[in-house]
């Protein structure tokens, strides 16, 4: 208790807590990536014409560039501090690890977010080559696009790590909820890559959405390890979903007007990315809070069943589409239960792993 009070007193003595600024820039970059993605998906479905330099694309590039440059700046500053034998504050991105021997000292969180941004550049080239060969298709789940989405996801994982270091500070708590929610929302697009897998009767995308959303929700909840942790992540995802539900079609229409392009005939204006996020996630978060005393696989399985069970209901509600064949529905819900149980256990373990990133309390006291 004394330790916590001392830590809080130390941080409140400054106007901005140490580590908050670069962490916020990395998170801001990942949010720009998410905004760019939701806008780009909507642009392709409602308007169409595409160049390298559309505004949604620039948001995607800028997001990774901002996160990457912030990560690089922190790594270089940490390296400079280490070379001068100055103490390195582990609250900024976690313990520093040596890179290329000990040429660089990189706080582990910023190392991961920076690697994600660097991979984004590499996969950008791979994507450019792909488009040269296959044409400028608007296929979201082409292999290079999945490579790009995975690269951005790695930056987002880095952002979660950076905030997890400061989990006992108020900004760290909010940051973990924000970074985990951003990763969760973004991953609902990356799972479209699972369409390439043979799933038999199982809807692989729905089952994959259940797996990743349960896992990331649990991870956030177990990093925070307090009542309301899962709910904080769930509510943040719902807030992102609500804002993008309005933003994506609106920004698409405004941008189309500004560039003098008409909307497609039969464009339905239904928000693409926000509709990929399960609306039932908030129910899963409530279930996780209520079933706290049970082993993680139980609420995990419940979460998987809720998400896969209600996914067709969301589609009927939004698109007015038909209910899937009962055999496919049951198979997907069963897969959802199994994957949800696994995701619950993994998410819990990942949460514990992330808690290790925070400096030991004696160190923080010193």
């Amino acid at each position, binding site marked *: 208790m004394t330790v916590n009070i001392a830590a809080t007193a130390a941080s409140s003595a400054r106007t901005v807590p140490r580590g908050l600024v670069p962490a916020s820039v990395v998170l801001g970059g990942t949010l720009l990536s998410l905004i760019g993605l939701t806008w780009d998906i909507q642009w392709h479905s409602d308007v169409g014409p595409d160049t390298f330099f559309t505004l949604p694309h620039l948001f995607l590039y800028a997001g990774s560039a901002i996160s990457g440059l912030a990560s690089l700046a922190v790594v270089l500053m940490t390296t400079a501090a280490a070379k001068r034998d100055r103490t390195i504050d582990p609250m900024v991105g976690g313990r520093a690890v040596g890179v290329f021997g000990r040429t660089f000292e990189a706080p582990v969180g910023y190392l991961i977010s920076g690697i994600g941004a660097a991979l984004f550049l590499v996969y950008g080239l791979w994507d450019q080559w792909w488009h040269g060969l296959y044409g400028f298709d608007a296929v979201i789940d082409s*292999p290079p696009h999945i490579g790009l989405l*995975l690269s951005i996801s790695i930056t987002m994982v880095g952002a979660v790590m950076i905030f997890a270091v400061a989990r006992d500070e108020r900004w760290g708590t909010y940051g973990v909820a924000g970074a985990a929610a951003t990763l969760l929302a973004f991953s609902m697009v990356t799972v479209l890559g699972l369409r390439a897998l043979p799933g038999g009767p199982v809807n692989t995308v729905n089952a994959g959405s259940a797996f990743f959303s349960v896992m990331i929700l649990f991870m956030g909840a177990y990093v925070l390890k307090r009542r309301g942790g899962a709910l904080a992540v769930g509510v943040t995802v719902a807030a992102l979903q609500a804002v993008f539900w309005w933003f994506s079609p609106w920004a698409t229409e405004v941008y189309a007007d500004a560039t003098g392009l008409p909307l497609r*005939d039969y464009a339905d204006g239904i928000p693409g990315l926000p509709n990929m996020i399960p609306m039932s996630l908030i129910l899963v978060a409530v279930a996780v809070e209520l079933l706290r005393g049970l082993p993680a696989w139980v609420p995990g399985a419940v979460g998987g069943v809720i998400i896969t069970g209600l996914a067709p209901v969301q589609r009927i509600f939004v698109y007015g589409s038909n209910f899937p064949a009962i055999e496919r529905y049951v198979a997907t819900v069963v897969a959802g239960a199994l994957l949800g149980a696994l995701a619950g256990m993994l998410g819990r373990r990942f949460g514990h792993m992330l808690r290790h990133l925070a400096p030991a309390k004696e160190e923080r006291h010193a």
Partner: protein
Amino acid sequence: MRKTLLGLAGTVALLLGLTAPALAFEPVNVVHTEKVQVGPYDLTVGFSTWPVKAMQSLDFTFAPEDGITGKKGTLTVLHNGVEAEDDPLARHPRKREVWGLDIYALPEPGTWTMRFDVEGPAGAGTGELTNLQVMEQPGPPMGLSWAVSTIPLFGLIALIVIAWRRTRTAVD
């Protein structure tokens, strides 16, 4: 913090300012056409690439001889006789005077059929572009492309394995 926010706002403003004039869309270049009789209508199907290869995207145009005004219809795409797509005929976003599909790829090689149902002043009609041969996909096999593209995922799994082994004890 204020500086950071100003920096972010500046970046966004710069992006907004620079992109509007940079947008210049490729015109639709038809390099091959096929004729289809759709009831009373003569329809020309245009392709921006020929021959068509699986997964390679191209612009398709569907142009009735006397224009699309006052007409509507549906396009059904069939692969080896099985329905793959069924959509209303919409104007091509970059060639608004005709119907079309923009940067659209047929996913599989084989024999494809495009069935047109058109309604207009001269009545309704149905016609098919049959025997549209789609060649094998260009480029490396998909397995290799997927292997290259999922390297970040395997990197992340490797990181998780390392972190897992180093964090066996729980932290309060």
